[in-house]
């Protein structure tokens, strides 16, 4: 068994990166993820890792250097948040289009304007179409565990795609909580040696990365990418099973909490799920059949499995910590797609909460669940999309 320590989310991720010992990291400071690379830099300075740390002049260059390094043929990691991810956006597509298994910690933070450094999911959700695998984490333990699994999923020969592990800025990145580390040798065995495919550094077998591809072949590249990320669902479960053997901690595509017989379901991502679970318990104590679904693998999205898990619910409340202005929240759109495709038609509402780090309190969850109970009774949903926890 590994040792138990009280540590912040950022420190947990930095520790995971130390144990992974990637060949190259390229990163640029940005709140709230700065501490990850800052701590990692001291591992580099102290010679604890073999990593070449490229301290670039922007996040755009960070991802560009990660791509160059990954194509050269080795294990590459980075971390960022918010505006940093936004600046990387162009390169995120290029990393996935080139099928490079880069692993990144994304410490979720709101996007400007107005400037805000606190946690919401606008950055991660905004990059959901970039072709990266996305794993979300409720707490430091999950972030730590997900980092190892993300490396394995990304590098799997059936996948070869970049992956990001998301956790909430400040709420998780800067809060100290108790968690368990895995021993170094156990991590090393789990991660294994990096297996390069078509590396640039094989100068005897020159390869061309990033050619101009016209309408005669472009869509074939994209189809291949589509097939690859689809396979990530299966690989995520395989890797989770292996991870359970070394850690005793079990992971799936999502977490179902008291969903089996639930007539009312809520969908909550990341740290807010912890708060909401307590509220679910309180309602269960009153005999109300409420359950919670906490997504983990957001890309690829496990539509069938989510629909199965939510299938018994008459009403569903989907919480979004990001908005797609003029549309429903991103999570709502996925859950709605899942339910429609499965042929079931529960009443569904969308509640936007916690933007820019506004606290998500038990009362917020309570109010929404009460509303869901009423909808279940009346069969009428009222306002489908609404902001909650807003000053009036």
């Amino acid at each position: 068994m590994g040792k138990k320590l009280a540590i912040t989310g950022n420190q947990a991720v930095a520790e995971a990166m130390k144990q992974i010992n990637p060949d190259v990291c390229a990163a640029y400071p940005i709140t709230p993820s700065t501490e990850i690379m800052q701590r990692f830099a001291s591992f580099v300075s102290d010679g604890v890792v073999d990593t070449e740390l490229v301290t670039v002049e922007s996040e755009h260059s960070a991802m560009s250097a990660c791509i160059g390094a990954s194509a050269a043929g080795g294990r590459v990691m980075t971390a960022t948040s918010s505006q940093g991810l936004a600046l990387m956006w162009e390169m995120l597509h290029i990393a996935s289009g080139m099928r490079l298994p880069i692993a990144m910690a994304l410490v979720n933070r709101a996007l400007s304007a107005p400037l805000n450094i606190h946690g919401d999911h606008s950055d991660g959700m905004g990059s959901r179409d970039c072709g990266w695998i996305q794993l979300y984490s409720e707490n430091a333990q999950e972030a730590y565990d997900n980092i190892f699994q993300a490396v394995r999923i990304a590098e799997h020969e059936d996948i070869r795609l970049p992956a990001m592990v998301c956790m909430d800025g400040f709420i998780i990145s800067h809060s100290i909580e108790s968690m368990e580390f895995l021993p170094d040798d156990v991590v090393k065995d789990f991660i294994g040696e990096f297996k390069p495919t078509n590396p640039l550094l094989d100068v005897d077998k020159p390869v061309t990365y990033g050619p101009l591809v016209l309408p005669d072949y472009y869509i074939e590249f994209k189809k291949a990418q589509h097939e690859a990320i689809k396979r990530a669902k299966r690989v995520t479960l395989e890797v989770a099973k292996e991870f359970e053997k070394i850690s005793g901690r079990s992971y799936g595509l999502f977490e179902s909490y008291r969903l089996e017989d639930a007539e009312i379901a809520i969908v909550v991502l990341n740290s807010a799920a912890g708060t909401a679970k307590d509220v679910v318990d309180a309602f269960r104590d009153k005999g109300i059949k409420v359950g919670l679904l906490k997504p983990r693998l957001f890309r690829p999205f496990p539509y069938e499995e989510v629909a199965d898990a939510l299938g018994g619910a008459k009403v569903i409340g989907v919480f979004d910590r990001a908005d797609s202005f003029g549309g429903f929240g991103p999570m709502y759109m996925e859950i709605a797609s899942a339910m429609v495709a499965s042929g079931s038609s529960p009443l569904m509402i969308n509640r936007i909460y916690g933007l820019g780090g506004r606290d998500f309190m038990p009362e917020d969850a309570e109010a929404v669940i009460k509303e869901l109970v009423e909808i279940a009774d009346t069969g009428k949903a009222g306002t489908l999309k609404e902001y909650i926890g807003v000053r009036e």
Partner: protein
Amino acid sequence: MSTPLRLKELSKKADLLTGGHRLCAGCGAPIAIRQVLLAAEVPLVASNATGCLEVSTTIYPYTAWKIPWIHTAFENAAATISGAEAMYKSLKKQGKIDRKIKFIAFGGDGGTYDIGFQSLSGAMERGHDIVYICYDNGAYMNTGIQRSSATPLGANTTTCPAGSVIHGKPQPRKNLTKIMAAHNIPYSAQASPAHWRDLMTKVRKALEVDGPAFINILAPCNRGWRTPTHNAIELCRLAADTCFWPLYEYENGRLTINYKPKEKKPVTEFLKTQGRFKHLFSPDSQDLLKQAQENVDREWDNLLREAACWADEAEQTG
């Protein structure tokens, strides 16, 4: 033992940028890049900014490159190659690779002077062991001749067209070679394919130094310069003879001028060969012509003065 820089020996070396690519007939870029590749005596890994060179040499499923090559985007050839170089360093340190490999980046003036400027500056400051080659044709030729910060004063481009009020580009060029030298990198130089032996010597010096090097190479574009397709080299020679494109190098901060024309020709001799400057020869553009000559004179005089200082110092220190 390096291949001697003589045509007879060089002609026996394999071309690393093969024929069959789709750059225009008469384009200066592939001439310059082939000279660069011909000079190299170590295995290279290249990155390439988006631009003519990139799109015309790698139309899928074909590639003209016989070296490992990567293109990611427009503004980041330097950052991309710095990542590849970092991976090489890491794997070498870990004993996973042992052979000598050098890293080179190619970009046009748009991808280098403008959108890729930050990425280039960052990579130079970080001290990667890379060579950055800019092929400077003085505009965004790939998108259809738009002005860049390398476009010469008065040039007619599609975004600074010669009109009845504004006579082409109102601003002079940015002096990127000097800006690169100001990064205090071990090697930076300006070259031209007309002086091929000088260019190839510079490439060898750039590849030899341990750390970042930058070479700015003039590469005529007949589409954008409005010139015929047979005289790219002649135009390069005129650029050096008029001191519009002086050939010089900074080795650890020390300037050497590599070519001093016996008789410095007026810049109009260079300008009049090209359709992009045609309007400057009408009576109402005389001021711009005068200014163009003054700019060339000032920059050339500055170079001469600086080189003279270095020569004096060398004399004093014996």
